[in-house]
């Protein structure tokens, strides 16, 4: 991929959080890859059931925990790792509201 511009720091808006794009957060994708791999029992010996925890095999509990982590990372990336158009859109909406109030 063309990384020339991707390596530039985000243009800071006048106020509010900096511009962010999930694709530019390398640790996010590494972490997602790890939790996905942790959730797939490729690294365990086929056929193993025990130990059971509350009647549930340990390997399924690992998969469940990894899936929760996958959801949490994805949710975080949406809310905190993504901020491209929002500052401009919010500013435009505020200006529109001001114009309506004045008129």
């Amino acid at each position: 991929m063309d990384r020339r511009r991707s390596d530039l720091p985000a243009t800071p808006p006048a106020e509010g959080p900096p511009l962010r794009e999930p694709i530019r957060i390398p640790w996010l994708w590494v972490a997602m890859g790890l939790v996905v791999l942790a959730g797939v029992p490729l690294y365990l010996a086929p056929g193993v059931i025990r130990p059971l925890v509350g009647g549930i095999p340990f390997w399924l509990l690992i998969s469940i925990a990894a899936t929760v982590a996958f959801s949490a990372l994805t949710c975080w990336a949406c809310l905190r790792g993504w901020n491209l158009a929002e500052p401009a859109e919010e500013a435009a909406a505020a200006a529109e509201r001001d114009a309506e109030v004045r008129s």
Partner: protein
Amino acid sequence: MNGLSFSGISGVLVLGAYAVIMLAIGWWAGRGTSSTSARSYYLSGGGLGFVALFFTLYATQYSGNSIVGYAPEAYRSGFSWWQSVPFMVAVIAAYLLFAPRLYVVAKREGFITPTDWVRHRFGSGKLTILVAVLMLWGLANYLLEQLVAMGQGIAGLTGATIPYEIGVIAFVLVMLVYSWSGGMRAVALTDVMQGIALLVGIGVLLFGALYLVGGDLGGVTTALAQTDPEKVAVPETATSVEWLSMILMIGLGAAVYPHAIQRIYAARSERTLKRSLAVMAWMPLLTTAVVFVVGIVGTQLFPGLSEDDSEQLVGMIANQVAGINVVFYLMMILLFGGVVAAIVSTADSALLAFSSVVSRDIYGRHIAPNAPEKRQVLVGKIVGVIAVAILLVLAWNPPGTLYEIFVLKFELIVQLAPVFMLGLYWRRMAAGPAFWGMLAGALLSGGLTVAGVDDFGGVPGGLVGLAVNVLICVVGSMMVGRPDDGPDEDPMVAEPVRAGAASSA
């Protein structure tokens, strides 16, 4: 699902009520929609707020198949079917690979169909035609699946009081009426009702299933470990490879479905879009995970079912739950109403996307480029109705199990991923290699399916096709592409730098 204790006239009444509510919402929503503007009709003017956007994403991504098809899969496969939860999370993660930037470009350029991006990025060549054809093929397959599921669900709910064919035609007419009059706005607002019905339905199914086993989920799994240890144990390596492959293929494929991309365009704001997706990241744990538990509970309630019989698992469980008392009886009627509503909500989204591609990318571009927008929209609507009629004929003889149909459509749709996920960032990516890569990937995937080769050691043919697609695309672009072939779509740069000449295939 014949002989249900809640079947018959009560099922007919609840389905009738659902149909009336859908028509009423569709009529109300359609009042503000203009059929003379493609943007108004297909994208609700790009003004969907959080509630409508979230529920239309939810009701579109999760169909009735997510209940009636996935519970039997958990029943048959055992714990390895937990994969249905991460692969649905992966769809939202895959959105993050392209949606943030595509949203900015789409708002700036006024995109209506997913193909608009391909045309903007690569020019109006044969690549855009191939993209449109693959989208129409995938959407038709998707719509067919919903029509098949719709008939089975309706016949099941009413104990065949409403025959399969009559049920499908009735709900297809309801869907066509509100989609025709209200477009995306009607589809999204009916999705709110349909999504709520699906969530409530899944909740009551879980509650009822756990009630039948005394709430002892640990006891269910312990008993299953004794009777069917292979369903509880760490799966074979090939199954785990398939698990990982499904996360990749469904994640990448479902995110680039035309109706999924159109919901990015239809968002009122970035704030609305990212909040909707943030909540969607948790929905697999409230949907496919719950259905997984129901399927596992089913192994103890109805042990030893054949593959065909297990397809009726949800109906069997619902039947037992309904027999507990009148409250459960009413809740199970709500469940099946929710299943049908969910199927309709997925079908209407696919139909609207199908119509938009026909209207804008085929008719408006290649058949009658000078036709006014109103006529383009009308042609899209009419061709959509004709396509549904043809698919109905196919739906009378539904093939195999629902899950097998579901997987097949991803083999082709996933081939669209590179033009979105690479094309947005890699300016050197050239139209020619993108076209040949996509064509090779689609032919290989389709060829393997026709030849009956489902996978290679757990890796599905669609993913093998995608690997070939990406390889041709990347190597070809390195050879023939120039560093500034494509426009610079970096939204962190104040004014996007236009490409000197976007090459066309």
